[in-house]
């Protein structure tokens, strides 16, 4: 029986190639997109899941409470916390601190390597699963001159020899003994580093780590087996406040399993966002695309009911019961789904490299992995279930006589259901396209918005050696000799990636119970000129004013916070140290436009990290070559490195661009699938109404009127879909936009334009096919009928 079912299913597919192609290709597209997004989602959930002790491994977060009601959630913790956790928390098996990633230059004889790494406490390799291929994980970081390096780094520095036991020099620092070589860090890790140095070394060089008042390193705890998280968190609340360690703060724990996906904390609470939102969004979109393709299958199959009815009738008359017929139609669904799965998977493997390039992703699908096969099987079964069940039920439910005598009429409910499905398809397509348009407009807005300083031809050039920092005034003079260099300054961070802040600023008249968080920017002379910040009042830092090392420039938000209408000449205090305000700059964006502009204080900082160069030239390569030459004459040990400010700014919106690229892809796909669905339905409608077309033409109908006959229904359905899709698209677009402090207003005309576009696309699809029948000789239709 199965063989017979398969045989007839195959022949049916082969005989009706156009419809079969629409069926299969439509499902294949749905399957390919579903698999693609499933692979991406799977990859997202895999991040950090390789740590063997992930169930007991937590990161310590700190909520900082400010007098204006703001609660800031940070991962930076006080240096002494680690020791206190181990001593006072019996449920903590081990606590370790790690620093942020720091770039260092390594040398071993003629081999060099420049890479990022961290400092970590000596329990690091027992808490995290970063296995060592050489060396002892228990003692690898036990002494201040130990270093563990990655296999990649070992290959670079010790190409033909064993690294463990050898020494390696960090340029401008000291030599370390390699005590371990760790396997390269998996891509699915939020911690990424090529070397690990002992934290005690970092601590010895940074005394600020010894006090409770400063936050810096990340602190991690490994809980003892069987520990209840709530028990630990309850004790943490009092721990930090004890002995006035830190007053207005509270600690809480985040599992390493949640570190990647659940990142959005607002006012001390997990605000339900972060990467998981994107995972959910794409998951829903992929499911919708998959459903659209299944809907195509269902509506095309049920539309063919009249063609299949006779066969069903014959089978019933000669003895087939309902179960046998359901089996037969399921076999067809299985065959089509299988072919669609084959094509969809091949399509996926073909487009994956292009997709990865287009979206800057690194999705890998291995046909040898168990997960891939589980995914393929699940999608296959889901396709059969969704696409196969309803048609099987409908087709097998006819009475034998009704079917065999061709007195079959489609039930109104089936026609209604098919209309609902088609409306559903178009609703998804319209909502997706309109939503994509909004995303696209917002990205355009982000890229074009004036951010308050001139980042077009502003270069950040890192200062890598302490010597260069000392020689900065001479370097500046040399740089200014380059004809295309307009202005030079320096800073301790990138102006559109400001990371430092302090709550230690006061001013006259500030209520003593208040504390406020200020962004602090360690700048240098000619900073306003070089960056193009807009000076509202006062002046720039200038070498001509020796006292400027004690002066500050503030932004409008700071002036507003301090209630200063005329701030020039007023003073504020860093602790006890007074600083005079010499300039007021207009507000400018220091981070992504997702965040509000914060009060900022600029001061002259001798601790320089970046030289800022404003260039005015079309000949960037030549300017860069000149800059490189000048820099190399001061720090020849380090490769010349630079970044344009607008490049850094652009990096903020990688995630949004990814969202937009995916949304564009899926919008096209949704539209294509809707087109395929409409095409299939038109073909069947034409076949069914062949005689009607002939009669109408004999009676004088024009080709346009015939085409109009077929277009009327789709016009109604797209119209309905438009009215359903518009509020949905508006709501979700608005939700997405709320992530941005600075955003566009959704323009009303986006929706009718999208609706009209989709309608024209549908009408074009119908017209192309129905026009053939409309212009054909009427007698041919009547004869065929």
């Amino acid at each position, binding site marked *: 029986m199965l063989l*017979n079912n398969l045989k*007839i299913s195959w022949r049916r597919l082969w005989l009706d190639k156009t419809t079969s192609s629409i069926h299969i290709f439509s499902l294949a597209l749905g399957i390919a997109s579903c698999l693609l997004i499933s692979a991406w989602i799977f990859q997202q959930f895999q991040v950090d899941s390789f740590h063997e002790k992930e169930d007991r491994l937590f990161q310590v977060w700190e909520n900082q409470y400010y007098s204006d009601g703001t609660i800031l959630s940070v991962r930076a913790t006080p240096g002494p916390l680690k020791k206190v956790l181990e001593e006072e928390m019996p449920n903590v098996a081990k606590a370790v601190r790690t620093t942020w990633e720091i770039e260092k230059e390594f040398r071993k004889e003629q081999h060099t390597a420049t890479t990022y790494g961290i400092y970590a406490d000596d329990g690091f390799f027992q808490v995290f699963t970063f296995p060592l291929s050489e060396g002892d994980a228990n003692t690898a970081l036990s002494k201040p001159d130990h270093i563990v390096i990655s296999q990649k780094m070992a290959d670079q520095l010790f190409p033909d020899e064993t690294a463990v036991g050898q020494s390696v020099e960090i340029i401008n620092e000291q030599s370390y003994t390699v005590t371990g070589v760790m396997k390269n860090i998996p891509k699915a890790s939020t911690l990424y580093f090529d070397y690990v140095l002992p934290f005690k070394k970092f601590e010895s060089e940074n005394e600020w780590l010894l006090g409770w008042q400063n936050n810096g390193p990340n602190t991690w705890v490994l809980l003892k087996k069987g520990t209840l998280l709530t028990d630990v968190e309850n004790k943490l609340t009092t721990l930090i406040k004890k002995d006035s360690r830190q007053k207005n703060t509270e600690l809480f724990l985040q599992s390493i399993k949640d570190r990647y996906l659940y990142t959005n904390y607002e006012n001390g609470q997990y605000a339900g966002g972060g990467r998981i939102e994107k995972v959910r969004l794409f998951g829903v979109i992929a499911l919708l695309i998959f459903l659209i393709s299944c809907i195509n299958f269902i509506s095309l199959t049920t539309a063919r009911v009249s063609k299949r009815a006779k066969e069903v009738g*014959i089978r*019933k*008359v*000669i*003895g087939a*019961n309902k179960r*046998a017929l359901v089996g037969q139609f399921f076999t067809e669904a299985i065959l089509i789904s299988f072919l669609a799965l084959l094509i969809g998977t091949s399509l996926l493997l073909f487009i994956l490299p292009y997709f990865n390039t287009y979206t800057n992703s690194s999705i890998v699908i291995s046909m040898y992995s168990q997960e891939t096969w589980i995914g393929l099987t699940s999608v296959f079964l889901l396709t059969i279930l969704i696409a196969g069940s309803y048609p099987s039920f409908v087709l097998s439910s006819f009475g034998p006589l009704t079917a065999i005598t061709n007195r079959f009429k489609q039930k109104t409910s089936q026609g209604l259901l098919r209309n609902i499905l088609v409306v559903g398809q178009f609703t998804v397509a319209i909502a997706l396209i309109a939503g994509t348009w909004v995303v696209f407009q917002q990205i355009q807005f982000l890229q074009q918005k004036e951010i308050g300083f001139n980042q077009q031809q502003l270069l950040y050039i890192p200062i890598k050696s302490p010597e260069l920092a000392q020689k900065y005034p001479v370097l500046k003079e040399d740089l200014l000799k380059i004809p295309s260099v307009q202005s030079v300054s320096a800073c301790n961070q990138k102006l559109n990636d400001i990371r430092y802040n302090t709550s230690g600023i006061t001013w006259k008249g500030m209520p003593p119970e208040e504390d406020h968080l200020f962004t602090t920017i360690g700048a240098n002379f000619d900073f306003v000129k070089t960056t193009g910040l807009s000076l509202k009042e006062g002046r720039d830092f200038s070498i001509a004013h020796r006292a400027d090392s004690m002066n500050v420039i503030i932004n409008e938000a700071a002036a507003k916070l301090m209630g200063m209408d005329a701030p020039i000449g007023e003073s504020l205090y860093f602790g006890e140290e007074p600083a005079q305000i010499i300039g007021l700059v207009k507000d400018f964006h220091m981070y992504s436009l997702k965040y509000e502009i914060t009060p900022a204080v600029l001061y002259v900082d001798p601790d320089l990290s970046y030289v800022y160069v404003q260039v005015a030239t079309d000949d960037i390569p030549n300017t860069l070559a000149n800059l490189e030459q000048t820099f190399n004459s001061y720090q020849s040990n380090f490769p010349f490195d630079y970044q344009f400010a607008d490049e850094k700014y652009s990096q903020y919106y990688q995630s949004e661009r990814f969202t937009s690229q995916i949304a564009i892809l899926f919008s096209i796909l949704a539209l294509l699938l809707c087109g395929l669905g409409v095409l299939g339905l038109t073909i069947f409608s034409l076949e069914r109404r062949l005689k009607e077309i002939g009669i109408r033409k004999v009676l004088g109908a024009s080709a346009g009127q015939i085409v109009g006959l077929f277009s009327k229904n789709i016009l109604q359905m797209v119209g309905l879909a438009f009215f359903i899709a518009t509020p949905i698209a508006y709501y979700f677009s608005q939700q997405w936009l709320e992530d941005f402090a600075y955003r566009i207003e959704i323009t009303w005309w986006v929706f009718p334009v999208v609706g009209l576009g989709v309608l024209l696309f549908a009408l074009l699809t119908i017209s192309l096919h129905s026009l053939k029948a409309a212009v054909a000789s009427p007698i041919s239709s009547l004869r065929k009928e």
Partner: protein
Amino acid sequence: MIKTVNLTKVYRSDEVETTALNEVNIEIKEGEFVSVMGPSGCGKSTLLNVLGMIDSPTAGDYLFNGQEVGRLSESKRSDVRKHNLGFVFQSFNLIDELTVFENVELPMLYTKVPSAERKTRVNELLEGMNIMHRRNHFPQQLSGGQQQRVAVARAVVNKPRLILADEPTGNLDSSNGDEVMKILSELNSTGTTILMVTHSQYCAEFGNRIIRMLDGKVVVENVVKQYL
């Protein structure tokens, strides 16, 4: 074999009620060859469909081999059908996607006849019907006469006790029609009961008895030749 008591079939649409069978009482014995005649719309095909259990009566009783089958569920009727009845239609009703061999084999798949036996029985029948050489052809590749012979082969392959034929020669020329009628007569002579609806007096006379219908009622019954 068949007995109906006041068998009635009424078709209802939104505004119209049509009585296709009006208290029909007939009896057909095992081995008979009964022809049903009458003008178009007199209810003869409806009678055949109800007796063939592909349609259900509105009222009255239908006893098949002494068992009331008129009010059985579709699945039970299907079970009775596949083991006892064979159908031959005017428009052949072969499945276009199956070959001649597969069309004839199909009823045996539903009665779970083993594969080897299916093959033997189909081949024997196709030989008997003189269409063996067309066994791998599809219905569209055959003449009307050949298609009807395939339909007859399919109707008898499960060795039914009753064959219901609805104008089996209606779409055939006279020589092909004759051939089909001969096959039906031969089947009847081997003990198969046949109930045939026809417009043709010539064809009707192949049977033992002719039932004439008008406006849903049996009006006359003629014995053509004595049933032995």
